[in-house]
């Protein structure tokens, strides 16, 4: 009986010791592992490649410039473990399970797109694993009651707010807006936000329709839109349909004062595919090379600063992908997410998902990506978007005024003018 009592005490002691060590996670760690089911092939390969490059760039910065993550009085290096999810939902769930169970990662970064992010969330949630979202903008992700999902990319409903504000300010006579979006959760949420904001500004939504994913011909929809005679058009969904949208607007000679497409218009491949037809086309972006976020700017608005400067990030990104390309917002938001995680680990002095999650909730900072702050649900509320426009084969930030690298070309050139070589230069 006495033996059994001693055994019980020893077992209890070791259990508590074990619990303490594992729950704090601060003292045993020799590395901090970020897991990521990345979209390196399939339909989101373009965005996926950028995201992986952005994460690698910031992991390198943390390890080599920042000296590692301060945890339990030590500097711990970050390790980035990723697999190709082929942009497929079924692969996302199995890879997240593998990252958590076999690779024993400390945090999971979600794949690109709202659909894939949403698919992976319950898997991470059921294992009480912090799940950081850099590519899923749909507000619905944060209406499911998930505790461990934290967003870096901004919510979809705000994508076109800046565009509408800008047009309202520049041309108060432009009242008729057409909304034509892909029939996806993300795009419909953007359209919902745009419609609400347009009505708030007193604009008249004269056309509102969706088109299915994988559409190969938008002629019937665009013909109907043409008949509604909008002043400007907001639309798109993902890269491929954005290309098609612009191309077929040109085919049908649908001239409007402004055209803004989500996801597609901000990528260099958009101009490569369309050439001069892309002149004047705009797109909302979470980040664009040329934005003016800096340590001095952070000081001015009273936020702590972390991370590389914009140019340092670009250099690190180029090294990470091995190509001489400028990163787009997919890379920047993924990179900024690394910085948010690092700050939260340091703030909580722990790797425990619950503690890091609490720290993320209290976190406010600025990096090359801009502001970062989340609400109680984990949704990003501290980051502002910018609007870019293709002008003479270059992307120019045209909104907000404080971030402008050039003036808006408004109205954009007609397709006949573009065919004659006119560029969208204000």
């Amino acid at each position, binding site marked *: 009986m006495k033996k059994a009592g001693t055994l019980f005490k020893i077992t209890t002691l070791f259990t508590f010791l074990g619990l303490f060590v594992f729950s704090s996670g601060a003292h045993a760690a020799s590395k901090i592992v970020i897991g990521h089911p990345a979209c390196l092939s399939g339909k989101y390969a373009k965005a996926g490649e950028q995201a992986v490059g952005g994460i690698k760039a910031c992991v390198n910065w943390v390890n080599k410039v920042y000296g590692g993550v301060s945890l339990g009085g030590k500097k711990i290096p970050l390790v980035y473990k990723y697999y190709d999810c082929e942009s497929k939902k079924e692969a996302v769930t199995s890879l997240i399970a593998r990252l958590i169970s076999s690779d024993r990662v400390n945090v999971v970064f979600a794949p690109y797109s709202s659909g894939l992010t949403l698919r992976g969330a319950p898997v991470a949630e059921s294992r009480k694993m912090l799940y950081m979202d850099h590519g899923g903008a749909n507000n619905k992700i944060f209406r499911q009651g998930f505790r461990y999902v934290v967003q870096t990319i901004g919510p979809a409903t705000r994508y076109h707010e800046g565009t509408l504000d800008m047009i309202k300010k520049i041309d108060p006579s432009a009242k008729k807006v057409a909304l034509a979006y892909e029939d996806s959760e993300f795009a419909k949420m953007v359209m919902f936000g745009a419609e609400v904001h347009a009505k708030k500004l007193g604009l008249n939504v004269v056309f509102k329709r969706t088109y*299915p994913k994988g559409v190969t011909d938008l002629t*019937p929809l665009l013909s109907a839109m043409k008949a509604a005679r909008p002043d400007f058009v907001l639309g798109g969904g993902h890269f*491929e349909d954005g290309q098609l949208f612009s191309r077929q607007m040109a085919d049908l000679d649908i001239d409007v004062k402004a055209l803004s497409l989500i996801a597609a218009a901000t990528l260099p491949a958009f101009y490569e595919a369309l050439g001069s037809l892309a002149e004047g086309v705009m797109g909302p972006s979470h980040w664009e090379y040329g934005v003016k976020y800096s340590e001095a700017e952070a000081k001015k608005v009273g936020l702590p600063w972390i991370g590389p400067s914009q140019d340092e990030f670009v250099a690190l990104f180029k090294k990470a992908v091995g190509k001489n390309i400028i990163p787009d917002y997919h890379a920047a938001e993924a990179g900024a997410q690394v910085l948010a995680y690092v700050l939260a680990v340091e703030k909580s002095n722990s790797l425990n998902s619950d503690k890091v999650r609490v720290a993320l909730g209290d976190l406010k900072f600025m990096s090359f990506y801009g502001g970062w702050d989340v609400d109680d649900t984990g949704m990003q509320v501290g980051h502002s978007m910018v609007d870019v426009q293709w002008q003479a084969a270059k992307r120019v930030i045209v909104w907000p005024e404080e971030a402008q690298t050039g003036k808006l070309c408004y109205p954009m050139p007609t397709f006949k003018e573009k065919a004659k070589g006119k560029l969208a230069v204000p």
Partner: protein
Amino acid sequence: MLLEQLAGNLFQGLVLGAVYGMATMGLSLIFGVLRIVNVGHGAFIMVGAFVTLWLFTALGISPLVAVPVAFVVGLGLGFIFYYTAIKKLIKAPELASLLATFSIGILLEEVIKLIFGSEFRGYNWALPKIDLGVTVLPLSKLYACIGSIIIALILYLWFNKTRAGTAMRSVVEDTEGAKVCGVNVDRVYANSFAIGIGLTLASGVLLTMFIPVGINPYMGGSYTLKAFVIAVLGGLTSPYGAFFGGLVFGLIENGSYTLFALIPGVEPFALTRFLSFLMLLVILLIRPTGILKGK
């Protein structure tokens, strides 16, 4: 205004339908002669699209020239795949040839991805447009439509006026009878498969003349689906039927959009897809030989 839109969409549907029809002829020819369902059909369309893209962007060669180039590339691919895989599977259970063509499709996708990457690409062939009043038609689309009609006519003449074409028809009608009459059935099989693939690659060129964006290794899937609907509509064994099936499909797909848009609270595109598959079901039930009764 509504009638104007309907007329414009029907015209666009007719032009696109001709290209869809052309894009299905290869599928029907292969099934008609070899009784093999080419599940990798869309991947061959994709290869044709990449031939156009590469010729235009790298060498500045017009997509019109790309049509015969793609046809020749297709012939080559057709012979290679026939002698390495398909020949052994003609007498095998249907599942074997289905899996083989599916694998060939994936192989092509991955090879193209390896060479060109997985990005969505496009090219800008700046040609004038014709304003028809009810709609605007770029010349590139008109060329694609005319090209499809010419290729369909050439195939018709080849089938009906040449010895090789007659041999092919005899194999379709009665393989054993054709053998007895001295037709080299194996050569007919090889030629049919190669010509079918050649036509499919050429249709990939014509499709990019209609839609010169969204070119990527995985673009073929949606065209495979449409090709099956059109093939059933036109009669699975009839290349001409497939061409007419394409015209009907294009007209219905575009025309119905305008009409469905009149129903309040409905997204017309969702219903046009529903209609396409309803059409497939109805044709299979009431006229399985297609609108031309398999001719």
